[in-house]
């Protein structure tokens, strides 16, 4: 290929595709290079939630900003993207968690995120299949779910309408000063390169701090109206942020297909994608504790995936600390679907050289060079 692109994006997962959509709109000549199939990596194995998180200011800023971008884009998304504003209910199991609900509500309220406290009765009305004697919960009504595979395709379609090129089945093996080298030896010339290859970003940059965090998911057959909101236990963040032990948390999601998607588990240091029945069982048991009626539902599939995790649970978005022509958009752990749009926006701002709507320095990849970052 003789032409020189302005930007080559490595990876056609949801992150790379969102970047392609956004940058091509600014008039850049973009090429997206995907080693396998569109959205075939971590994107395809996740839950597809768009959720505003409160675990840190940086995480909140990016998820909140992204959620609003999704809301706007949803107006033009085709039906097969299955975007649905079902809301999230953070379920409280005991009195101890009551304080946490209040804290959460205050956090969101101060930052203008709509919430609603549910008492025992209104929780049961909202979700009759939850077990009795749950204390209540916090409803975040603007959270949503999406079929992330079709959303990725939608992003790419928009990018291609803006003139972007898509190459699938082409593996990048080397990042060069003037482009990238493919496995077959071909050179794709580009002035700037964005590494958006999720966990595989590391294959092209050995020093990048990303580890695999394995997860399991289960999906059921169709059960209309079994669950109406995304349900997450309040202890979820404990699971999401415990940096060593294997953990499970109650997290179920309604799909537009009337199927129930059940998660979640987190494991470090596991490299193979085979199903680990012990942790899958723990995960399902946890779900049954909250929703005993799930017992009689039939599961059609169990599968695993790998979240690209960074040591501080924040993604890398921005210019590489040493390589001037290289940018990163990777390491989104379990929030890549939500934060794809925000990521694309702030990366575009950085490339153009304008300020972002949110403080984007906190996501800068230069932090993985720092000493305090050395722990893993």
């Amino acid at each position: 290929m003789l032409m020189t692109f302005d930007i080559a994006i490595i990876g056609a997962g949801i992150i790379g595709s969102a970047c392609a959509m956004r940058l091509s709109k600014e008039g850049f000549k973009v090429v997206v290079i995907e080693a396998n199939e569109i959205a075939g990596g971590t994107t395809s194995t996740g839950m597809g939630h768009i959720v505003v998180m409160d675990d840190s200011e940086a995480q909140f800023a990016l998820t909140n900003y992204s959620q609003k971008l999704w809301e706007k884009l949803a107006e033009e998304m085709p039906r097969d993207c299955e975007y649905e504003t079902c809301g999230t209910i953070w379920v409280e199991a005991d009195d101890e968690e009551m304080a946490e609900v209040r804290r959460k509500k205050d956090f969101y309220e101060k930052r203008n995120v709509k919430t609603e406290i549910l008492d025992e009765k209104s929780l049961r009305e909202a979700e009759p299949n939850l077990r009795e004697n749950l204390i209540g919960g916090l409803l975040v009504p603007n959270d949503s779910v999406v079929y992330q595979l079709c959303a990725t395709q939608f992003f790419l379609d928009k990018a291609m309408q803006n003139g972007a090129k898509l190459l699938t089945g082409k593996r990048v093996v080397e990042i060069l000063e003037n482009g990238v080298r493919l496995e077959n030896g071909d050179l794709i010339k580009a002035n700037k390169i964005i590494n958006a290859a999720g966990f595989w970003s590391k294959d092209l940059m050995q020093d990048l701090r990303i580890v695999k965090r394995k997860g399991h998911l289960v999906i059921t057959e169709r059960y209309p109206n079994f669950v109406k909101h995304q349900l997450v236990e309040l202890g979820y963040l404990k699971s999401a942020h415990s940096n060593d032990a294997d953990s499970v948390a109650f997290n179920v999601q309604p799909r537009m297909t009337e199927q129930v998607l059940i998660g979640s588990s987190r494991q470090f240091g596991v490299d193979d994608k085979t199903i680990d029945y012990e942790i899958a069982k723990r995960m399902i048991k946890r779900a049954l504790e909250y929703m005993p009626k799930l017992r009689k539902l039939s599961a059609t599939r169990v599968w695993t995936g790998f979240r690209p995790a960074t040591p501080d649970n924040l993604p890398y978005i921005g210019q590489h600390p040493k390589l001037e022509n290289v940018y990163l958009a990777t390491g989104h752990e379990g929030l890549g679907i939500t934060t794809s749009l925000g990521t694309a926006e702030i990366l575009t701002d950085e490339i153009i050289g304008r300020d972002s709507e949110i403080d984007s320095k906190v996501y800068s990849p230069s932090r993985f060079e720092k000493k305090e970052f050395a722990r893993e």
Partner: protein
Amino acid sequence: MDKMQTDILIIGGGAAGMSAAMSVAENSNLRVLIVDDNPTLGGQIWRSEMGKIKSPEAKKLIEKIEQNEIEILNKAQVFAQNDEKSLLAETPNGAVQMHFEKLILANGARERFLPFPGWTLPNVFGAGGLQALVKSGLSVENKRIVVSGTGPLLLAVAEYLKSKGAIILLISEQTSRMKLLKFGLGLWRIPKKFFEAIKLQSKLQRTVYLTNSFVIKAEGKENLEAVNIVQNGKNRRVECDFLACGFHLVPNIELALMLGCEIMDGNVLVDKFQETTLENVFCVGEPTGIGGVELSLTEGKIAGLSAIDKKEKAKELFTQKEKLQRFANALNETFSLRDELQSLPNEETIVCRCEDVTFGKIKDFNSFREAKLQARCGMGSCQGKICGSATEFLFDWKNESVRPPIFPVKLENLVD
């Protein structure tokens, strides 16, 4: 969770599985356990009718199995692997762990369905599917039925339905008269089969049997009303109540795939002793290649003997197996699908019934995985068992990735 322990575990209680079980029982003192998803033994070919089996051959085999104290677990579907030496099955009473020393897979086959406009209308059945429904009580008396597709099963089904009072309007077979004749001439090599064929034909003497012919469309407002059949370029419309339609058979290889057995050309790869590429895992009958009941019985015997290390005795059956294998090859060649069938679906024709995915939605993808990821083709509760073999024929896609559970299983049975 209940645990069962055995020496030789056999998955499938059809001809191949029962034959393997007897072969072990007659030549050793080892414990044998047959696991099957039906309420009674017999598999598809010898499916019982209101709890009773007609075939004298099958009856004899089942009697022998009962006399030999072979353990049987009915209504059990194997859905996952527990570890290298145990599998998990779902039964009406919960999940069961089955521990074994050696494993014989005899999962049988299912009908191949191919999409054409109208194939999802009510009263369009699989040929074997309709037969099974009638066996469990559906009445076809005075129903006008068209039988179409390909393979020897069409004749057997037509004859059966006729014996139950159905009016068989015609049988439409897609293969050519020439191929059939050539096959017929070869039948003398297998006298028993020849005899069966004559018997079938005599009962169906007055039934119209079209070759070079296939259904291109099924019509009806709410239910099936008529089918359009083409033969040698000529169309005809036939009003009917039911269409029984099947395109030969597809081997059930999902369990073998999940265990990690090597697959070749859609069949489980085995050596002469029926051993798969996994040590101590054998495979017999249709999953090793569609071959019919006699080949299944012989393969079962060989696998049983191999599993108990009586390989010399197993070798004595090799000549017989080769002969039957030649017949099977000729059969598969005779009923191989013609290319025109690939062009039957239109944009709106549903290919994946579980997820309502149309032909138009998937025709531009490059692989089954792409169609799965982007259009959910094969993501429904049958896990691509139906559309997988259809798209293999339509687009030459391979669907060789399976995810447990290979059958939908209650969540409580995954945790107990």
